[in-house]
């Protein structure tokens, strides 16, 4: 069990100042290297002495990884751009407000000043059995302590659980999926660009990792195309403490309307599974329909199909149903209908 000692295990600290140097270090150290962005996830692991990397590559000195840039088709946000900068950047606020809303709801102002967009999407699961250092599936063991009759699983998955029932805790991830973002990854073989939803992994695919990054890989930037710029956005996060907490569930939607008709929509939720889920079936079912409470109702019901509650998280099913409903019909409409 983890005991906070506040003294990190010894490791070699590397502070590269360029992407090229960082890549060289990551390839040199392979699986022994720990990549640190803002450090908010990393220091938990290190101070608890659960993760004991031999080398720590601190990316904070790489200016290339910071800032929001306008590109031919949209914007590119460096992976080391702080959440505060994302929240306050004028182009993000005006054109991609969904991301600004999501980033603003991450933790506290202090954490947003230090936390980065790349770190937020790449952070590890917060399941306390896992974070406590117990030998669960995600830690390479052979059991899920949360998925037992007495396991404390109020925050855990209702969808796509496969042995491990931890959830992805990122707030920015569903917003980026809804905005059809692309993640830019530098690998030893060159640059790889993947759709936001393909960046994340469920336990069925890889139970010990939450994303596709492998040793030697580096997330360098996130590109948001202009296709959804200025669309109608909705983001809502439900958490236990409204001042500062991880999401119990969140929802993000980007919608294009023609009058009252939903022309196109992308919608994603997080906190329901080990990876943020794009709700394609919901998108298909509401496309071409009138934006109304009834449509939201249908969407909400469809969104939770197949959900399997654990001992203490059945509340997440109506919660998700209602969040999806609200993300389509809006808060007022949803309130009238319910």
């Amino acid at each position, binding site marked *: *069990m983890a005991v906070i000692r506040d003294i990190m295990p010894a490791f070699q600290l590397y502070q590269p100042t360029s992407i090229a140097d960082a890549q060289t270090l990551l390839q040199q150290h392979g699986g022994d290297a720990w990549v640190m962005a803002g450090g908010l996830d990393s220091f938990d692991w290190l101070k608890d002495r659960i993760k004991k990397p031999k080398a720590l590559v601190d990316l904070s000195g790489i200016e290339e990884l910071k800032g929001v840039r306008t590109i031919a088709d949209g914007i590119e946000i460096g992976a080391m751009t702080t959440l505060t900068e994302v929240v306050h950047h004028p182009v993000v606020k005006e054109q991609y407000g969904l991301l600004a809303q999501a980033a603003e709801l991450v933790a506290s102002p202090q954490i947003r000043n230090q936390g980065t967009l790349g770190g937020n999407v790449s952070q590890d699961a917060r399941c306390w059995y896992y974070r406590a250092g*117990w*030998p669960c599936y995600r*830690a*390479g*063991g*052979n*059991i*899920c*302590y949360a*998925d*037992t*009759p007495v396991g404390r699983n109020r925050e855990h998955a209702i969808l796509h*659980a*496969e*042995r491990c029932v931890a959830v992805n805790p990122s707030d920015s991830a569903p917003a980026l999926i809804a905005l059809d973002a692309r993640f830019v990854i530098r690998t030893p073989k060159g640059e790889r660009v993947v759709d936001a939803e393909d960046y994340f*992994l469920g336990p*069925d*695919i*890889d139970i010990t990792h939450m994303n596709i990054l*492998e040793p030697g890989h580096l997330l360098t930037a996130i590109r948001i195309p202009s296709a959804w710029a200025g669309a109608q956005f909705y983001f809502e996060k439900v958490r236990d403490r409204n001042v500062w907490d991880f999401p119990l569930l969140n929802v993000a939607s980007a919608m294009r309307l023609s009058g009252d008709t939903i022309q196109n929509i992308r919608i994603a939720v997080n906190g329901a599974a080990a990876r943020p889920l794009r709700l394609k079936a919901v998108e298909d079912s509401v496309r071409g329909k009138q934006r109304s409470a009834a449509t939201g109702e249908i969407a909400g019901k469809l969104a939770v199909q197949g959900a*399997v509650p654990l001992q203490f998280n059945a509340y997440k099913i109506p919660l998700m149903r209602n969040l999806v409903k609200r993300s389509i019909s809006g808060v007022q409409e949803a309130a009238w209908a319910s």
Partner: protein
Amino acid sequence: MGIIEWATSPLGQNVPIHIAWFLIWVALIAGMLFLVVHAIYIRYFAKEKEFVADSSPKVASQLPARIPRHSLAARLFHWIMAASMLVLLFTAFLPKVGVRFDWVTYHWIAGTVLTISIIFHIIHASFYLDFWSIWPDRADLEDAWKRFQRFMGRSSALPRKFAKYPLENKLYHGAIIVTGMSVILTGVFMMSRVRTIFFPRNPYLFSDMTWGLMYVLHGLAGVGLITLVIVHVYFAIRPEKLPITASMMVGTMSREFYLKEHDPERWVVVEASPGTPRRMADGD
């Protein structure tokens, strides 16, 4: 570097959690090494097989041109088992070497197919086939000793020809029983830890130590099967064994091969006709 990975349970116990995954490579290398060594041995050192004379021309003349060896049911079992075994091995070990896919579902489905096919085989072999034909007997051991003596250059009587299965085949079958039953029995219990259609999850069925040992046994038997499967496939494609491999597909082997390798007194073949006892194709 141990062959078992250990962890500390919430109760502070040091418990095994699974085998060390480098054993996958050990098993793979062992299998490849065996086939290289065996191929060199056969090419450069092995002597021509010699057997004591047995069959009379009269016996030979009574044999059909094609000797029945494996019934359709036995062949279907073999290939279903082989397919499920390969799926099990690939779905078990590819993720451990970095290939990412949804392996658990395929793994337990293939495991279920294997379990059902093995149950069928046990019943089939026990009640419908010559159960003892696959188990080593006294004659096998005596002949093995004679072959060993002759290989060492000592004088010894010639060994008899084989019964339906040579000793090596019988020993291989024994090794498959041990490893196969180990993975199946542990696998059935391990299915209670994942969500399947068969029974509700029950992670509390055993203590952490028992579970750990079960995972270790499952893993050890699994990597053992990597080596065994490599060896099996190698023998199946060796030129001198091709008639046996072909018989697992078509069910029969030629009279010439039968007379060359097998003792008609130890593997009695009776021509098939309506009402003929099962003994004609008594093996699997």
